[in-house]
């Protein structure tokens, strides 16, 4: 079997563009997901059932249904309600953000609840409000513990953003499929794409280990 490097060569600029969008989508999703996730995570910890319920169901829905379905719902259902010509890239960013918000909400909740109850009590006993205690005492400690699951979520996002190829958002996987469609070759484009994902995710987990070691020695 011959391996046609010329296909890879021809598509290299597109793969590069694709990889940038893959990273861009994952970055947007992790940032927007963190902001939404913090709010949702705090909401889910509310003592009032009625406040808690919508947040619980948000998390249930986005963790309990396939991301693939969510992307289709957003692109073909939600976005057309807002825009005449929905952009696949925007749809991908929105669905990845909404999805990661659910996972990050759980990361926040678990991180916050892992902090000893005595910390909140000590802060409140000094006259701090709940918000002050969260801001100055609980969150700084919780955030440190969230780094590993958080980095893990980022790795998952890099891989899962490949599903956006189905709505033709031109990220890495999209260009892999394009090359496959043009030349009817499987190994060259898909192995190349797989290798690039692998490089991305492995470097991230290396970075994570480095961070973990750095913070555990503090």
């Amino acid at each position: 079997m011959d391996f046609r490097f010329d296909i890879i060569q021809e598509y290299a600029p597109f793969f590069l563009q694709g990889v940038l969008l893959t990273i861009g989508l994952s970055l947007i999703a992790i940032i927007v997901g963190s902001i939404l996730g913090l709010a949702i995570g705090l909401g889910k910890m509310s003592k009032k059932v009625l406040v808690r319920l919508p947040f619980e169901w948000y998390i249930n829905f986005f963790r309990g249904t396939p991301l693939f379905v969510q992307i289709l719902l957003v692109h073909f259902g939600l976005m057309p309600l807002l825009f005449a010509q929905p952009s696949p890239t925007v749809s991908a960013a929105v669905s990845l953000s909404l999805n990661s918000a659910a996972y990050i909400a759980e990361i926040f909740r678990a991180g916050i609840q892992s902090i000893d109850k005595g910390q909140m009590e000590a802060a409140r006993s000094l006259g701090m409000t709940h918000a002050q205690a969260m801001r100055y005492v609980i969150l700084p400690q919780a955030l440190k513990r969230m780094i590993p699951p958080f980095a893990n979520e980022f790795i998952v996002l890099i891989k899962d953003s490949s599903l956006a190829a189905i709505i033709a958002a031109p990220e890495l996987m999209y260009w892999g499929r394009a090359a496959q469609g043009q030349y009817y070759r499987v190994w060259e484009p898909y192995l190349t794409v797989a290798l690039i994902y692998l490089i991305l995710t492995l470097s991230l987990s290396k970075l994570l280990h480095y961070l973990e070691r750095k913070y555990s020695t503090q």
Partner: protein
Amino acid sequence: MIKVTNLKKSFGHLQVLKGIDAHIKEREVVVVIGPSGSGKSTFLRCLNLLEDFDEGDIVIDGYHLKDKNTDINKVREEVGMVFQRFNLFPHMTVLDNITLAPLKVRKWPLEKAKATAMELLKKVGLQDKANVYPDSLSGGQAQRVAIARALAMGPKVMLFDEPTSALDPEMVGEVLSVMKQLANEGMTMVVVTHEMGFAREVGDRVLFMDGGYIVEEGTPSDIFDNPQHERTKAFLSKVL
């Protein structure tokens, strides 16, 4: 200073406080003793609303805790609390632990907060520890920092929940002597403790709790030398 009337509190079906009446005067040191599970911590934690209560009333320095118009954070500014397990903030230096609440709650300028904190550290004998993190402190040192942290808010009342129970025996003394000094300066204190020596020496009054009631109360010599109730006698015979 503190007036508690008919205080009742349940956790689910378990009634832990079954009607507590207590009156704690200014500058008084009240020691609470009693068997495990009798409700001592719960009683103490109701005094700054770390636990909400079901029935009765608590008035502290004129604030009715059950009154909807009472800002509980204001009350807590006047009521310091020291916990069995110190609960220092591990991500902050000793100095930052002490200045946090004065800065954020009292809105003091940094210089004033720092100066006050250093004074308090000197008072508890730890001025050289200002810039270390809590995990490098011994238990006794950590508890003294926790006391300084509570004092930094300038409270009118200090609550202590078994402040020496988590300490190695050789460190109990240093914490008790800080508390004794505080008592001598006229601080109003409510102390839950198993240190009967401290109760006898420093306490103005001893409350004996059992099964959610204050079974007996009196001066230390009343309680320790001449207990009236069978349950008090039984408890004291075990701990003395």
